[in-house]
């Protein structure tokens, strides 16, 4: 059974369980893709040269400490107002499904060479609710996540380069919750701030075998993602359009505005709570151009995110949105750190 099918079942199951009548519905779909380089091509080259240490050296000599990353992600979510059978503080329910594929890896240490590569595909089902304050200034959301997928892993160290390096396969599953709180306030008519805080603890379970050289390595563990975000915007008006300018600050692992890394990225990178102060903070300038009404038609941002320059552009036309961005992503896997510049694009629609 395909994993995406399993995700759809999760979603359907959630809808049946909730059993609420819909009053107003929102269906949103999005597809995103990002990559630096495909590390599994490097893995293939190493495999092709099994036993020839000199040839393997030629493949990896310039790749030490430069990890690669590639992912694609499809998500769909459906939200609806509650019918009054549930506590008052719940305004909306939502269910979602998410299919993601992720691959990456890297080589490290030219004296005691190691290669590590990972790949996974997963379907994730989610269900949760929104609570909107009476003043419409704050929103609290909570969702539970369940996922199932497959993973493969390749690890070799030193002498293991001599023989064919085995690719290990296993099942990867996850379960966790995602809590978010957003608060918006204005100062006068044309200056406002939006602040948010989020936390996402997820336990990953894997049945994959550890590599020969690191038999003690655990592949099932808990990761905790957290995020604090603040945006200050001043709005200006002209005869033709409105526009706003401001700054935003982000704290948390992977502090990249608008970029949603796959959930399994946290797993493969064994996400740390506080890797280093600079790598969990970001600050940048934001500019928004408004067309008719208050809907932002064009947004842009640029700044220092996770200690490196990054930025993005977003275009919204009616119900469609297009986004493109580039960031230098910090990877953490197999005791090493390394940055990867990725280029990402996403397309979304709200029906």
């Amino acid at each position, binding site marked *: 059974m395909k994993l995406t099918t399993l995700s759809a079942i999760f979603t359907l199951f959630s809808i049946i369980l909730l059993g609420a009548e819909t009053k107003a519905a929102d269906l949103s779909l999005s597809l995103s893709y990002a990559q630096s380089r495909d590390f599994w091509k490097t893995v293939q080259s190493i495999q092709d040269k099994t*036993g*020839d*240490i*000199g*040839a*393997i*050296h*030629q493949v*990896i*000599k310039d790749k*030490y*400490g430069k990890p690669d990353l590639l992912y694609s992600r499809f998500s769909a979510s459906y939200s609806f107002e509650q019918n009054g059978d549930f506590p008052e503080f719940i305004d909306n329910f939502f269910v979602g499904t998410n299919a993601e594929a992720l691959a990456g890896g890297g080589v*490290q*240490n*030219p*004296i*005691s*060479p190691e290669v590590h590569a990972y790949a996974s595909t997963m379907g994730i089902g989610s269900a949760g609710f929104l609570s909107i304050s009476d003043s419409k200034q704050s929103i609290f959301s909570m969702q539970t996540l369940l996922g199932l997928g497959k993973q493969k892993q390749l690890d070799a*160290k*030193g*002498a*293991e*380069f*001599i*023989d064919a390096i085995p690719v290990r396969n296993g099942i990867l599953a996850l379960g966790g919750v995602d809590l978010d709180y957003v*608060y918006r*306030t204005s100062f006068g008519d044309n200056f406002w*701030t939006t*602040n948010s805080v989020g936390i996402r603890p997820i336990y990953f379970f894997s049945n994959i075998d550890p590599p020969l*050289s690191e038999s003690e390595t655990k592949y099932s563990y808990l990761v905790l993602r957290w995020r*604090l975000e*603040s945006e*200050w915007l001043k709005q200006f008006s002209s005869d033709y359009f409105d526009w706003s300018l401001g700054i935003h*600050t*982000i*704290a948390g692992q992977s502090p990249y505005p608008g970029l949603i890394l796959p959930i399994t990225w946290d797993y493969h990178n064994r996400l740390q709570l506080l890797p*280093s*102060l*600079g*790598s*969990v*903070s*970001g*600050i940048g300038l934001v500019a928004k151009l408004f067309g008719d009404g208050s809907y932002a038609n064009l947004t842009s941002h640029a700044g*220092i995110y*996770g*200690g*490196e320059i990054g930025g993005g552009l977003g275009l919204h036309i009616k119900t469609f949105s297009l986004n493109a961005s580039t960031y230098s992503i*910090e990877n*953490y896997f197999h*005791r*090493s*750190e*390394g*940055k990867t510049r990725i280029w990402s694009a996403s397309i979304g629609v709200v029906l």
Partner: protein
Amino acid sequence: MKTFYFIALLICFSSCAPSTSEKYNSASSEAEILTLLNEREYHKAIWLIEAQYTKNPKKTDIKFYLAQAYLGKAGFEPLEFIDKIHGDQNKTQSNLWNQFFKNCETRAIFKNESISLHCLFKRIYFNTPEVSSGDFATARSLMRSAYPNPEHTSTWNNTLIGMVELVSLIKRSGDLYMYGKNILTTTEMKKNALNIQWLKAQFTQALIETNECAIRGSYSGDKISKFILKYKSESLYEALNDRFQLSQRLGTLKLLSIEHNLKNNPDLTINQIREKILAALDDEERQH
């Protein structure tokens, strides 16, 4: 709301902090040490790891990383080294190439192509940095003391230590042949051209390296042989498990017999020792 503004202000300041160990690396964690090694910043790595090692002298892994940084500084990266010894020797060899084992070809060796051990060792000799002193010697000494017991050492660490010992032995033997011919290739050799104690110490070191190499070889299976030759050479594999065979195959047995001779005849002069070295080399040339 004040808390939010305070946090936001904190983020503004923290954005100026270093994001990774690439900046302000102090080698205080394994990740930071690996970053320095990945960037081949060996001088900096030694300086910083030594500071960590002083604080934690009992930490074996830090000591082994320090040894690796010294190997890197000496210009010895295992994969690159193997690539060089199998490559075209016209690129790397010096004008001393024909001083011994003249029949050895200089062209690149193909995968699984057999090569005589004499010629392989000649290639190793001409691609190895100085081993009797300096960074390579420091690395070797740190590796031995980090993992003194091969039984409790991982296969790869035994393989790496065994390779370092093998390469040291081959380089030292080659230097002794050169010394016998009165060709002084290193600063160390020039400085000790007439120092009989230094010369005797070279034989003693060669004996220690033979022992270390044989014992590491016996704990790393066929890895050293496969790593160096690209295939399991029975002659090298068997030799690596027995110090007598190893000395015989490497041609160092005769050199080691000189070491034994020196103990029984402490009055031998430098010229007499040189004659014995040349006789040992002649024997090897004949077998080759």
